[in-house]
C-alpha cells in the first residue's frame, strides 16, 4: 500500500463514520453544529496520531498479553492532555463538547487503529494512518454537523443563512442525528460504488 492511499483511505474507502460506522457516540452526540463537529474531530485526530505513533514505537517491547491495557493507558494519557489543554486554552469549545472529550478514550476508532494498524506497521505509516483516519473522522463530523445546523437552525458555522424560525428542530435533537447520519451514509455509499 503506498503512503498516499494509506492516507486517503480514511476519507472515503474506510471512512470511520460513513463506512466503518465506528465511534457513533461522539458522532451523534457532538454534531449539533459544524464547529462542534470540527472541534471534536480535530481533538480525536490529535489523539489518534499521537497514540498511533507511540504504540508503533513501543510495539516491540510490550508483551502480547498486556498490550491492550498498555494501549489504553497510552490513549487515556493523550485524551487527558487534550482535555486539560482545551479547558485551559479553548474554554468555550470545551464547555460545548464537555463530557465527549474524556469519552474519546472509549472511541473504538482509536483502539481499533492501534490494534489493527499501529501494532503491525512502522512509525511513519502509523502516523499517516492516524492522520488520515483522524481527518476522515473530522471531515465526517463537520459534514454531519453542518447538515444538522443548516437544517435545524438555519446556520452554517454559526453564520445565519436563513431565519431559524423555519429550522426543523428535529435535526438539532438526537433523532435528527440518526436521520442525517443515515442519509449521509447512503449518499457516501452511492458515491463510492461508482
Amino acid at each position: 500500500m503506498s503512503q498516499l492511499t494509506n492516507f486517503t483511505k480514511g476519507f472515503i474507502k474506510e471512512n470511520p463514520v460513513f463506512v466503518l460506522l465506528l465511534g457513533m457516540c461522539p458522532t451523534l452526540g457532538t454534531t449539533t453544529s459544524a464547529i462542534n463537529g470540527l472541534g471534536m474531530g480535530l481533538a480525536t485526530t490529535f489523539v489518534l496520531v499521537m497514540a498511533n505513533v507511540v504504540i508503533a514505537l513501543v510495539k516491540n517491547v510490550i508483551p502480547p498479553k498486556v498490550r491492550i491495557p498498555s494501549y489504553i493507558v497510552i490513549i487515556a494519557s493523550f485524551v487527558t492532555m487534550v482535555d486539560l489543554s482545551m479547558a485551559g486554552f479553548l474554554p468555550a469549545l470545551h464547555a460545548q463538547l464537555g463530557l465527549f472529550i474524556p469519552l474519546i478514550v472509549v472511541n473504538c476508532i482509536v483502539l481499533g487503529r492501534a490494534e489493527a494498524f499501529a501494532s503491525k506497521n512502522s512509525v511513519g505509516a502509523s502516523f499517516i494512518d492516524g492522520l488520515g483516519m483522524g481527518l476522515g473522522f473530522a471531515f465526517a463530523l463537520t459534514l454531519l454537523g453542518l447538515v444538522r445546523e443548516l437544517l435545524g437552525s438555519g446556520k452554517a458555522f454559526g453564520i445565519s443563512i436563513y431565519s431559524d424560525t423555519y429550522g426543523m428542530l428535529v435535526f438539532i435533537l438526537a433523532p435528527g442525528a440518526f436521520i442525517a447520519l443515515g442519509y449521509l451514509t447512503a449518499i457516501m455509499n452511492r458515491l463510492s460504488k461508482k
Partner: protein
Amino acid sequence: MAKESNFKNMTLTLFTVTLLASASLGFVYSFTKGPIEDAQNAKINNAISLVLPEFDNQPSAESFTRNVDGGVLTFYPAKKDGEPIGMAVQTFTKNGFSGQIDLMVGFLPDGTIHAIEVISHKETPGLGDKMESGKSDFNVQFKGENPKDFKLSVKKDGGDVDAITASTISSRAYCDAVQRAYSAIVKEGGSK
C-alpha cells in the same frame, strides 16, 4: 510483539507505561493549571460586570458562600466609593432539561434584579439555550423587576414569566435558579 509474555516482563511493562503516563500527565497538568483557572475567573468576573451597575471594588475578592439545597451559592458584593450598589449571586438549579444550570444574577440593594447571565448550561441548542442573553429576549424580561411583586415562575404555573417557546422545562429551571438567589439575598438581609 514477538516476545513471550511472562510475569516479569508483563509487570515491568505495565509499571513503566503507567509511570510514564502519570509523569507526562502531571507535567501537562502543571502547565495547564494556570490557564484553566484564569479562564474560569475571567468567565466569572465577566458575568459579574455584566449583571451589576458600574462598581469600583473587586467583588470576587470579597465573595462569600452559603450552602443551600445541596449546592453552593456564591455572593459577590459590589461597591462604588465604599457604598454598596448591588450584589451578584452565582446560583444554580438541578432541574434543567439536561441537568444543572448555573446563572449569575445581579441584584440592586432593594432586591430588584439588574440583569442575569448564564454561566453554564447543557440545554438543547436551538431550544433551551435561548435563555442565554443575546439569543432571545427571554432574560430581558427580568431586568428591573423586583421578585417581591414579580412572581418567578412561568405563566403556565401562574407566575409572571413568559416561558421560552417549546422550552417550558428550561424556563422553569431558570426561574427556580433566580428564585433561589433571591431567597438567599433576602435571608442575608438584602444585598448590603
